[in-house]
């Protein structure tokens, strides 16, 4: 019961946020929606299926560049179309890469996914003619629900219609992911995580399930990635760099991968923390590195893990 209350309260707070606070904070929250969606996907792969990908940023970047390509090169401005295209692009790229990657587990899976991520990064960086190289590719303001909102200034657009649109996409994504995790397919994934060998002998086609999880994660990554560059108006190769994948894993760990809401919480905390730390010191990397180290060594279950422990201790 208290979980539903917490989620409802969080949703309410998020919904009221732009109306109550300053524009700065509302725009700060915008990447949170994109990252939240991408992390829901990553958590399906790691938290539910036990595969830790160090190349998830590939799909985030793919989504971002899909948005950029569609808006600035093809003139397609409807965000609905863009999100669908990103989803399809994610699935198309995930199928062959997934087929290769899911044959391996643990560190080899991590290394393969990292290599693919860097492969995409090098492609984005070097093929200047297609991708704009290190200058990136522009992302134009999209149409939401068919409307161009031209009467809104950039800030008004971002903190108003776009904010609620992103929130809606995140909520929709969470509902979809919730149903997936709670389905027989989700149970099969968890069985694979617990004991892949036994799963195979309990009727679970491990290879196919892993591939499906990989593709779903990629789709979520791409959809989240498509939302990311809209506030800044620029899709950048660094979105695919391995440190970006590292950040995604960091957010996942921070929030806690054993819990459905962990990744979203992790994204939120990361973004808020990054903003706060950056304003205090220029050595934010050191602070973040230290936090990650502490989390990895002492709190691998993340914040939700801590909350779980306290709840259990309290009862």
């Amino acid at each position, binding site marked *: 019961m208290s979980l539903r209350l917490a989620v409802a309260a969080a949703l309410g707070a998020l919904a009221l946020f732009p109306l109550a606070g300053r524009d700065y904070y509302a725009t700060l929250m915008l990447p949170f929606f994109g990252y939240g969606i991408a992390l829901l996907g990553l958590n399906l792969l790691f938290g539910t299926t036990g595969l830790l990908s160090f190349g998830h940023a590939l799909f985030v970047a793919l989504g971002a560049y899909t948005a950029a390509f569609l808006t600035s090169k093809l003139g397609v401005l409807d965000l609905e179309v863009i999100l669908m295209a990103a989803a399809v692009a994610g699935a198309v790229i995930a199928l062959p890469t997934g087929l290769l990657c899911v044959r391996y587990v643990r560190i080899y899976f991590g290394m393969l996914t990292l290599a693919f991520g860097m492969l995409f990064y090098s492609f984005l960086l070097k093929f200047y003619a297609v991708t704009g190289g290190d200058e990136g590719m522009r992302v134009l303001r999209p149409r939401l629900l068919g409307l161009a909102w031209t009467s809104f200034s950039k800030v008004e657009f971002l903190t108003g219609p776009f904010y609620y649109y992103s929130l809606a996409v995140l909520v929709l994504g969470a509902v979809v992911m919730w149903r997936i995790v709670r389905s027989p*397919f989700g149970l*099969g994934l968890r069985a694979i995580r617990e004991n892949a060998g036994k799963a195979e002998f309990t009727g679970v086609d491990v290879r196919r399930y892993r591939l499906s999880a990989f593709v779903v994660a990629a789709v979520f990554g791409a959809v989240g990635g498509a939302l990311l560059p809209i506030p800044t108006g620029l899709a950048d190769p660094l979105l695919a760099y391995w440190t970006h994948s590292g950040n995604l894993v960091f957010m996942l760990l921070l929030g806690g991968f054993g819990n459905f809401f962990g990744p979203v919480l992790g994204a939120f905390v990361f973004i808020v923390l990054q903003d706060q730390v950056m304003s205090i010191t220029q050595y934010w990397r050191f602070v973040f590195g230290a936090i990650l180290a502490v989390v990895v060594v002492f709190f691998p279950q993340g914040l939700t893990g801590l909350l779980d422990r306290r709840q259990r201790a309290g009862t």
Partner: protein
Amino acid sequence: MSVLLDARGLTKRYGDFTALDGVSLTVSEGEFVSIIGPNGAGKTTLVNIVTGLAPPTAGQMSFRGLDIVGAGPVTLARRGLARSFQLVNVFPALTVAETLAVAVCARLGRGRRFWSSLAADRAVHAEVGEIAAVFGLADRLARLARTLPQGDKKLLDVASAFALGPELILLDEPTSGVSTADKHAIMDVMVGAARRLGVKAIVQVEHDMDIVFGYSDRIVALHQGRVLADTTPDGIRRDTEVVATVLGKPRS
């Protein structure tokens, strides 16, 4: 009675070493077959080959007439062949109910459903409940597998193989690690479960001769990769060669 498993001339070589040499095994409906033999005789190799863990170097296998050479465990489960393992194998963080549900969902073909809620699936719950009751695990449905005592883990492991609804089930040393007092109890549970759940034949690899002679319709004795004898328990007792190599000297 119809033939379920028909394996002929199974040979398995690892380089120079021949683990199995022309082993044939036929199992029909209603049979309880025990495979016995000293260590290194090839029992585990035979079971691994029949259940899809390793391919035979030579030979044929069919299940209900369909060729199963090279078929993986998932395909075999769908065709009606399941197995349990000697070493206890569980899903540590899943509950007893969830463990059984994995198998039941596979049997009912729910695997492709990634949208429907498992919690609301009454058919799955009913079957899980039935299987748990048959194995005496009904009061532990909500417990995590890793918190179960060793004996219950073994039961759960076997139960999840039964939950696949196979026609033939292969048990690899089902009473290993179980105290002598409990062995008969577990065997009775398994035979009862087989009857309740529609399993038509059981094949077991077993070292405990009391269990072997107490439950088997047929005994297959292996030695150095070959079949020494394949007959009724009485036939085995009269076969001096088997007695010498597998059973040790007869008690005078």
